[in-house]
């Protein structure tokens, strides 16, 4: 049957299971928007295309499906760029469909023409420029397959306006041919055997669980492996939720703002099992002194990540779930009680320093608010965050028992991610409690999406941690620039009034005793609700590994109110 390119696009996207798209119409994608009216798909009209990309990203991370963002040519497409880069760094499967000027105008600097495939080349897993309607079906099929398979990532389809309007014979391609695209699944048996031998020899093994555990859906396999081999698990920021935080083998988060005992465990381990993580600099600190006693086994689906930052002894290139299934039968049950006891002693020292151990002093600390939120929601809410101090506190204090419930911009560290990703998450799980934890800086970057939340009736709760500072930058200036505050103070609007202007119920919280009632108010009120917490202005996230420092050279939270900054050595 002959159909227009725009119709073929929707026909194919429906077959990919697309139910909701996040986007913004404009001159170069109007035929797509016109055709959309004939298809059972829900369109979310965002207020800025960056929001569309983040919503698609949040939707993808929460649902495991491919998220779709749409924009017109030129500025519409370039506004997607931050969201695409965010999805690329965190391997999130999204497909972006952008309109492009007609094929005969491409290259001629036509109105709203931008070289979008050129711009997005380094920040997409793959991209396409479609100049004829005959190509649409094949390209859409490939794009969704590439986005969600192997190491997932963003794929962009730039469709020329003529290709949207012109007709082509539509036949859904039953299979696709991608001769250069072969995501690995099984690791070679010989490598598995080598890994098993290292595991058998280890006395102080440690698993580093990354985002790959969640992307591969390998939570069960991870748990089976860890319990069988009696190996503790440290998690990256994006790996949180891959293993229950309450489990005795769970050590929580590693890295720059990771738990001190977790970083000490890495520096003292004799075997690291890196599962679906990429040794980011925020995780390793100084590479020259990183895990000096450890052999390293790296299970990774992307061969270009192997030996990239850290040279490993045994790379296992394949799908994590498959590799762990292959590996478990090759390992025996081990007992690492003395190693776990060592970690436990580091851990108890950390707990004494923890801000949760502080007596109530009438001040409002983000960590306390988040622990209250965790208790009030029984730790069961889906959390999205923005980027900065509140993000690290959310990772530290809103403990994750289950997978795919902590959605945050890790690799790119994109401020403005929190609110739109929460809206996207709501479309994936409209029946679940969703909180987005944001700071006053990042929130204002994509604050316009409040209107989108209202228009869609998104049942999301916004916990805004307002310290009138760009808190993380302020913290760095305090620690590393002699407290010379440069461009970090924010004179903010009245956020309750902003919410009010959107018709969003809101509360302001200034004292600790107001926290729980405000949380309860938000939980009981349907639709979007904002709670502004006026938190301590100059509180810092601890521990902290300064950029490029040794992983165990942490700035620790001073015990109680002592102000000495000290360093812990093994």
């Amino acid at each position, binding site marked *: 049957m002959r159909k227009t390119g725009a119709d073929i696009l929707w026909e194919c996207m429906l077959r990919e299971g697309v139910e909701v798209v996040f986007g913004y119409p404009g001159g170069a994608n109007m035929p797509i928007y016109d055709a959309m009216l004939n298809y059972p798909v829900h369109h979310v009209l965002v207020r800025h295309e960056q929001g569309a990309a983040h919503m698609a990203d949040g939707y993808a991370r929460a649902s495991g499906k491919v998220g779709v963002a749409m924009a017109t040519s030129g500025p519409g497409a370039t506004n997607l760029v931050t969201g695409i880069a965010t999805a690329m760094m965190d391997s999130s499967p999204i497909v972006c469909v952008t309109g492009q000027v007609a094929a005969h105008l491409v290259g001629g600097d036509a109105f709203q023409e931008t070289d979008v*495939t*050129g711009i997005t*080349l*380094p920040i997409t*897993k*793959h991209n396409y*420029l479609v100049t004829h309607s005959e190509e649409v079906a094949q390209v859409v099929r490939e794009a969704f*397959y*590439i986005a969600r*398979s192997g190491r997932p990532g963003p794929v962009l389809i730039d469709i020329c306006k003529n290709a949207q309007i012109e007709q082509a014979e539509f036949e859904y391609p*039953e*299979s*696709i*041919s*991608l*001769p*250069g*695209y*072969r995501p*690995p*699944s*099984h690791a*070679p048996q010989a490598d598995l055997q080598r890994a098993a031998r290292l595991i058998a020899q280890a006395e102080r093994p440690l698993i580093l669980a990354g985002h790959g555990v969640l992307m591969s859906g390998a939570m069960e396999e991870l748990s089976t492996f860890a319990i069988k081999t009696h190996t503790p698990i440290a998690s990256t920021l994006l790996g949180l939720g891959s293993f229950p935080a309450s489990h005795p083998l769970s050590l929580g988060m590693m890295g720059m703002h990771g738990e001190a005992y977790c970083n000490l465990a890495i520096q003292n381990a004799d075997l690291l099992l890196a599962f679906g993580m990429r040794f980011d600099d925020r995780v390793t600190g100084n590479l020259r002194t990183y895990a000096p006693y450890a052999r390293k086994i790296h299970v990774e689906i*992307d*061969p*270009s990540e*192997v*030996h*990239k930052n850290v040279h490993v002894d045994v*790379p296992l*290139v*394949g799908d994590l779930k498959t590799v762990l299934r292959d590996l478990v039968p090759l390992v025996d049950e081990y007992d690492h009680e003395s190693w776990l006891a060592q970690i436990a002693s580091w851990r108890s020292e950390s707990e004494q320093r923890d801000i949760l151990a502080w007596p109530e002093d009438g001040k409002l600390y983000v960590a306390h608010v988040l622990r209250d939120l965790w208790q009030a929601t029984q730790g069961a809410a889906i959390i999205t965050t923005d980027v900065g101090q509140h993000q690290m506190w959310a990772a530290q204090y809103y403990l994750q028992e289950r997978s795919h419930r902590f959605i945050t911009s890790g690799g790119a560290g994109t401020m403005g991610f929190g609110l739109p990703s929460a809206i996207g998450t709501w479309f994936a799980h409209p029946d679940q409690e969703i909180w987005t934890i944001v700071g006053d800086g990042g929130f204002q970057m994509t604050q316009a999406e409040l209107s989108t939340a209202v228009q869609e009736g998104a049942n999301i709760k916004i916990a805004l941690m307002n310290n009138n500072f760009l808190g993380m930058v302020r913290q760095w200036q305090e620690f590393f620039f002699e407290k010379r505050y440069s461009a970090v103070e924010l004179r903010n609007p009245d956020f309750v009034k902003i919410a009010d202007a959107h018709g969003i119920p809101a509360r302001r919280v200034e004292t600790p005793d107001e926290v729980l009632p405000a949380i309860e108010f938000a939980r009981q009120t349907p639709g979007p609700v904002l709670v502004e917490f006026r938190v301590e202005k100059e509180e810092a996230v601890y521990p902290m590994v300064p950029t490029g420092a040794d992983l165990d050279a942490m700035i620790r939270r001073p015990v109680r109110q002592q102000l000495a900054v000290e360093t812990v050595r093994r």
Partner: protein
Amino acid sequence: MQYTLIALVENKPGVLNRVASLFRRRNFNIESLNVGRTERDDISRMTIVMNSEETDARKVEVNLYKLVNVIDVQDVTNQPAVLRDLALIKVKAVPEQRAEIANLVAIFRARIVDVAPDSVIVEITGTEDKIEGLIELLRPIGILEMVRSGQVAMMRGSNNGVRHAPGANGHHSEEELTVGY
């Protein structure tokens, strides 16, 4: 040391840009890059020469392999391969110098392919070393202009180059090349 890689890529618009963009993005310094057609219309062939540490050569290999349009990457460095470069060298030559140039050209089994009143064009094909050798001898006479094709390479007999990229070798059966899911 010098590494020579062969990449088979899909013959589609923009693929060269993807490869070049990769080199820039990952900060790889390339000595020469040759792109050309192959025995198949749908496949182009790239020969990439780089002077680097082994770790960088491996990184180029795995990153090339990661591109969707790149079908195969082989390392032919120190393998039984035929390596060839082609150069056109325009040499300043008044008539009385032509005999001297013709002598050198004969020794190197090169050819004079154009003669003008005050210059000749020398064509030479061979390994990079051989071409460098002739250039050194022609330079005192006066090289006006030169162009080189960049190295191309082909393995001898039924040999393949080495595929270092984890997952590039032996992980996939032929039928997996066509994906139906």
